[in-house]
């Protein structure tokens, strides 16, 4: 069986990812000071998704994992989005 | 071919007929095929199996055909259902209020009744309300069912097409007397209906404030005001009387005073009156204000 196949991510890469994440955190906080009204949810979730993407890809090593695992992770998010969407087929048209 | 009790019987029963007919057809053909194969290819008769290659065309056929068939069945069902959600603008509005475990109906002009009397051949829209938990407004003869969800305004509508009495039953499980939560729907000619409606009493307006609190919280559904035994003990003559209760398994007697009544409302399963079952009444903690409780106590004092 394959053991110890995990890619070693350099300290430098991890530090850079942290900087990116910090940047987006400040971005999302400063964006809320503008009143974007209906878009504020979209923007906040978009930024959160980008941050999540970085955590998944680098911190959680998804970039170096098998295609199968990457597809599975994507599938979970798609499934969850579909469940939310379907629930709102009910709530949005009440 | 179908009854005319309401305008939906035809659509619903037609779908039942088509889908049910298909179901019977499938069941019979599967059974015949199974019996046929079991007899014909029995090991005694056919000791050696013949391997058969998969046939893509055959597979494709029995994927496509059922798909088309189910889409057709869905369409039939949707056609039969759609009119149920399109209530005409000129329909008479009636409120059906479900509470544990009693139906009551409110007519325009603030009239109430325990029987749902309706004129024949007139469309009526029933607004479905609930005072406590979910109840189901189910009239089997009319092919109508919709839940009364507390905090939501569901509705159903129909045009009654036959004179007579029909059963209205609660279809959503709602507690110990769920199966006794029934009412009668009486379909009468228009003139009779008008006469009946004028004779009906007005809503609780004018009634005592304490009674309104009891009514609002659904207390009177289980606790009678006239001394008769219901799901819970009667309120008549309760205040100041000697009550035999069981607390934590021990029997004792207390005087029904202010604090006893308050405890019974907030922690109904603490003291159980002899002859009644525990765990049926819900706690009203957080649902009733202290002021309302005092109003109730004052009102109970008057019930001698």
């Amino acid at each position, binding site marked *: 069986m394959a053991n110890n196949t995990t890619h070693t991510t350099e300290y430098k890469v991890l530090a850079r990812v942290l900087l990116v994440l910090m940047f987006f955190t400040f971005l999302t906080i400063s964006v809320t000071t503008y009143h974007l009204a209906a878009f504020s949810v979209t923007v906040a979730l978009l930024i959160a998704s980008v941050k999540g993407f970085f955590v998944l890809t680098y911190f959680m090593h998804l970039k170096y994992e098998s295609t199968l695992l990457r597809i599975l992770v994507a599938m979970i998010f798609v499934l969850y989005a579909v469940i939310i969407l379907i629930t709102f087929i009910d709530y949005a048209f009440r | 071919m179908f009854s005319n009790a309401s305008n939906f019987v035809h659509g*619903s029963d037609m779908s039942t007929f088509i889908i049910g007919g298909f179901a019977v057809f499938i069941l019979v053909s599967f059974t015949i095929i199974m019996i046929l194969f079991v007899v014909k290819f029995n090991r005694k008769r056919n000791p050696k199996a013949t391997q058969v290659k998969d046939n893509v065309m055959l597979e494709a056929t029995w994927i496509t055909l059922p798909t088309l068939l189910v889409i057709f069945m869905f369409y039939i069902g949707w056609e039969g259902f759609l009119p149920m959600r399109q209530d005409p603008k000129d329909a008479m509005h009636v409120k059906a209020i479900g509470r544990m475990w009693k139906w009551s109906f409110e007519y325009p002009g603030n009239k109430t009744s325990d029987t749902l009397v309706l004129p024949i051949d007139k469309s009526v829209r029933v607004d479905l309300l609930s005072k406590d938990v979910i109840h189901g407004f189910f009239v089997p003869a009319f092919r109508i069912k919709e839940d009364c969800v507390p905090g939501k305004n569901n509705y159903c509508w129909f045009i009654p097409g036959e004179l007579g009495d029909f059963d209205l*039953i609660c279809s959503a*499980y709602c507690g110990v007397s769920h199966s006794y939560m029934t009412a009668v729907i009486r379909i009468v000619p228009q003139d009779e209906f008008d006469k009946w409606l004028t004779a009906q009493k007005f809503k609780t307006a004018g009634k005592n404030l304490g009674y309104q609190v009891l009514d609002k919280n659904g207390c009177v559904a289980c606790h009678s005001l006239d001394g008769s035994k219901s799901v819970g003990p009667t309120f008549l003559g309760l205040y100041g009387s000697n009550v035999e209760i069981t607390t934590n398994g021990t029997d004792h007697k207390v005087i029904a005073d202010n604090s006893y009544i308050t405890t019974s409302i907030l922690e109904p399963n603490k003291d159980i009156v002899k002859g009644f079952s525990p765990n049926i009444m819900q706690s009203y903690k957080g649902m009733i204000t202290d002021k309302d409780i005092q109003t109730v106590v004052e009102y109970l004092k008057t019930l001698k």
Partner: protein
Amino acid sequence: MTETKKIEYVSYLDRQGEYKGIFSWIFTLDHKRIGLMYLYAIMVLFFVGAIMGLLMRVELIAPGETIMKAQTYNGLFTVHGIIMIFMVVIPGLSVIFGNFFLPILIGAKDVAFPKLNRLSFWIYITGCILAISTQFLKKGPPDTGWSFYAPYSTTTGTNVIMATFAAFVLGFSSILTGLNFIVTIHQMRAPGMKFFNMPLFSWAIYATAWTQLLATPIIGITLLMLIAERLFGIGFFNPALGGDPVLFQHLFWIYSHPAVYIMILPALGVISEIIPTFCQKKIYGYKAIAFSSIAIAGVGFLVWGHHMFTSGMSDQARWFFSLLTFLVAVPSAIKVFNWLATMYKGSIDLKPPFLYALAFIFLFTIGGTTGLLLGSVATNVQVHDTAFVVAHFHYIIFGGMGFAFFGAIHYWLPKMYGRMYNMKRATIAWGINFVGFNLLYFPQFILGFEGVPRRYYDYLPQFQTGQVISTIGGFILIAGLILMVINLVQGARHGEIAPANPWQGSTLEWQIPSPPSLENFDEAPVIKKNPYDYK
């Protein structure tokens, strides 16, 4: 392929590890022993649930109070539901036969995480004890129905917290089992065994495990919210506090509808194993059956709303859920077509497992097609929440999953214990079960259509004929079940010694001795052929 090896063969039933006697079971890491422990636990719980069902049937034999009060009746159907759904049917096939045979079918020595497997078993037992204890605690058994609908469940005085917590714990066990099986299938297949060389039961377990893994967390959080609702009044489901009871139904069915597929998919897998063996034929449409399992699991996630057609959902949601419900019928139909095609030109041996498979197809067809009546919005208004639903899901769950379970145990018992049961008695028991089952549940279709709601303690006198027939069916069925179990127990203990391959099956489990040795394969198998290679 392994009988000729020099290593002395000792059955897994005899070989003990570092623990002796009873502890060799309690602390076992062997997937086969864990499977057997699940079998015993589930059989006991099944009979507890069945007796509760029978008591309800006796109560309903005449209108009015017959043997119990309404509150007792409500407690009975709730606990009957909780036991049967969460403890018997949802784990059922996958923990017993999945544990026992999944590793063998894919040529592995054990599941991927044996310790986790043992842990899930004991979590399961803990959940069962918690749930059963609600019967004896002070507030009395829950009376909400197994569906715990808010706001009734948040206000009733009975012991709902304990019951929901038990269901939460059982869900945990279910998740860990599913996780274990997925990893097992991905990582532990014998050399040469590709996904498309796996027997169809493994495919079914695979699809089931994914459903367990992804759906169960939703019920977990829902039940936690329900508990918090009762403890603190957080108000999510309480309309008086602005909450939404229908939201509870959404969350509940997001899990509980896929749960139906958790119950039925392994059953479909079992039937796909039994039919080729007793026809001595390669299964027809292997890939179609494998993919239909995945399709059922996938689409099954998106149809939960058909349980809520009368809850006041938007019209858009109603047609969406209705359409998808109809579409999910297609993969099930494909499976039945393929099974029938497999029987064609086979050499059919009418042994008890095959008889159960035939009964399964018959009952499952009734259950499935009546499901179409429930899925169609126009007919749903008439039959929703009535005895029709009760009949429908008992046809699917008991007639489907239950009969597949009985088929599976008749099929695999010789392998599990190395002994054979009495064929004739098994056939008689099958006949009694089949007749009793139909007598018990078929009248309820008619009662339901005439307007007898479910969970009714009492009914009008005009419905008595149907209720009496149904109760008689209940007694016949229980007699058949007792006969079946006695026969199986006798067979497992004192039956004749079974050969390694009594049915001339072609899948891997039949290539090793009965009962298997501790590590299943004394020499790692190398797979070069299809699972259903009959000459």
